[in-house]
């Protein structure tokens, strides 16, 4: 297998890429990790067994995707890496297309599984807004593949190396004026064993109180469909399940008042058990569930809270 280069702006995702790279390569010497202005990541990756090539260049800003792609393109050329694995978070996806264009590669993003088959790296990704799963591969020698967070476990243990890499950086046409860190508690609904998800069937923001109580009783997290966060703004966007939200694999998912459009269900279809509570007995969500209760969700939640 040709040389593999891995890069993510996020250390935890870079560690996942290291695992992904190991899964398609028989020789860890062929795997090289690039970091950009991130000493903490250099440390974490080398301690996980990666051969790290660190780029430290003050004038290279992560916000300039063109500059980052140019730097990674130079790194791939110098290190002889034909395959580049990136993380499919927003930053990684934005870099992917540009880097593919820089190195003349084929590119697949949002990939959630990799397999090697007869020299090909076959990739699974959701297509048609999640209605289908496409099994694809890149025919070209040069490949850029962006991998969905949490598709692989983070790598740990091993002895790597730390090397320096110098790249040429052109003057940037972008100026970073401000970084606003998102306020509010951050939740990790992807890690939850139990999820109670609400959709637009919920009457009001006040009704969230009983939903939160139910989640607490079940030891789970509250999640939601996209409109509940983006249109109604009742919950924060990091609780959204689906194509543009999180992909969750809980043991139990209780879905309240969600119609079950594919952009939502793609984020919950890997749950072990799904319960749908909906007033509409024809809701698509019901046919994708293990237990279906056709009733008003508010009544059902009250009854569950008092029974539990």
């Amino acid at each position, binding site marked *: 297998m040709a040389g593999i280069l891995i890069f993510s702006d996020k250390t935890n995702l870079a560690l996942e890429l290291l695992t992904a790279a190991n899964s398609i390569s028989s020789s860890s010497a062929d795997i090289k990790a690039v970091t950009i202005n991130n000493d903490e990541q250099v440390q974490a990756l080398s301690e996980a067994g990666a051969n790290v090539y660190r780029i430290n260049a003050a004038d290279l800003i992560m916000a300039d995707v063109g500059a980052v792609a140019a730097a990674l393109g130079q790194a791939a050329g110098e290190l002889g890496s034909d395959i580049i694995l990136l993380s499919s978070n927003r930053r990684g996806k934005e870099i992917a297309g540009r880097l593919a264009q820089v190195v003349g590669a084929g590119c697949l993003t949002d990939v959630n599984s990799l397999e090697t088959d007869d020299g090909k790296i076959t990739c699974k990704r959701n297509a048609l807004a999640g209605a289908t799963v496409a099994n694809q591969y890149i025919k070209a020698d040069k490949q850029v593949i962006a991998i969905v967070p949490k598709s692989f476990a983070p790598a740990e243990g091993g002895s790597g190396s730390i090397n320096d890499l110098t790249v040429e950086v052109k003057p940037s046409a972008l100026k970073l004026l401000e970084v606003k860190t998102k306020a509010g508690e951050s939740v990790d609904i992807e890690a939850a064993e139990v999820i109670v998800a609400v959709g637009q069937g919920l009457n009001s923001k006040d009704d969230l109180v009983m939903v939160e109580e139910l989640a607490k009783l079940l030891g789970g997290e509250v999640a939601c469909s996209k409109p509940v966060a983006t249109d109604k703004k009742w919950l924060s966007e990091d609780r959204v399940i689906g194509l543009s939200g999180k992909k969750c694999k809980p043991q139990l998912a209780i879905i309240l008042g969600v119609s079950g459009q594919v952009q939502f269900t793609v984020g919950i279809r890997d749950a072990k058990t799904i319960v749908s509570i909906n007033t509409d007995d024809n809701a698509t969500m019901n046919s994708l569930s293990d237990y279906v*209760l056709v009733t008003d969700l508010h009544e059902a939640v009250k009854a569950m809270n008092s029974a*539990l």
Partner: protein
Amino acid sequence: MNIVVAMKQIPDLQQIRIRNRQPLFDDVPLTLGTIDKNALEAAVVLKEADESIKVTVLSAGNEEVEDTVKEALAAGADEAFLVLDDALEGADSAAIAAVLAAAIKQMEDVDLILFGEGSGDNYSGQVGSRVAELLNMPQAGYVSAMEIKGGNAVVTRTLEDCDEVLEMTLPGVISVMAGLNEPRIPSVTQILKAGKKPKEVLELDEVDVDIKKLAFTETISNLAPESNRKKIVVKSVDELLQGLRSENLIGR
């Protein structure tokens, strides 16, 4: 100021049916990507504030795009620039990007090119980034707010954990975030007028891109995932909780 909005023709996803795990496209109407409509709306809002702005819709696809694009002309675009060939339907992102970049080079003084964060059917978020590289322009993706100030765009890029406020020298590429705005629904008169708006239609060989050389990806299969959910209909909360308890899912 000239703004180009790249919009992709896609089948209306709500109307795709699945049979034997195969998606069925027969009789599914064609439309433009939802997020691409957000990009167009953003351009039209800029135009409303500044009459000197011209908005051109750019699309590459099969012959039917000529009809589908009326939707965008009705919703406020001034004109359309189309590259049409049946081979462009479902072509690789690299090929589409090369065609779009070549088309943009044929236009006059483009200051800003808008994309969606992902196309409706493929949602791979590649084409905008590739075009930015091909045209050697700066880019900002996942943009949730934008303003034009002098020769610059001031944009907010919304990432998972933070917002970046950036000043970008134009010409540049912006990919807008899904749900950025509420795209307007054109009135009947606007729809009638749309047919009369200028349209520049090129054939593939007029942009000088060999898309066969840019067919980098191969699809082995594209099937709906198997679902074998139990679909047990329960009559009451008690019955539901009983079921969940019997599976050891609650009260552990």
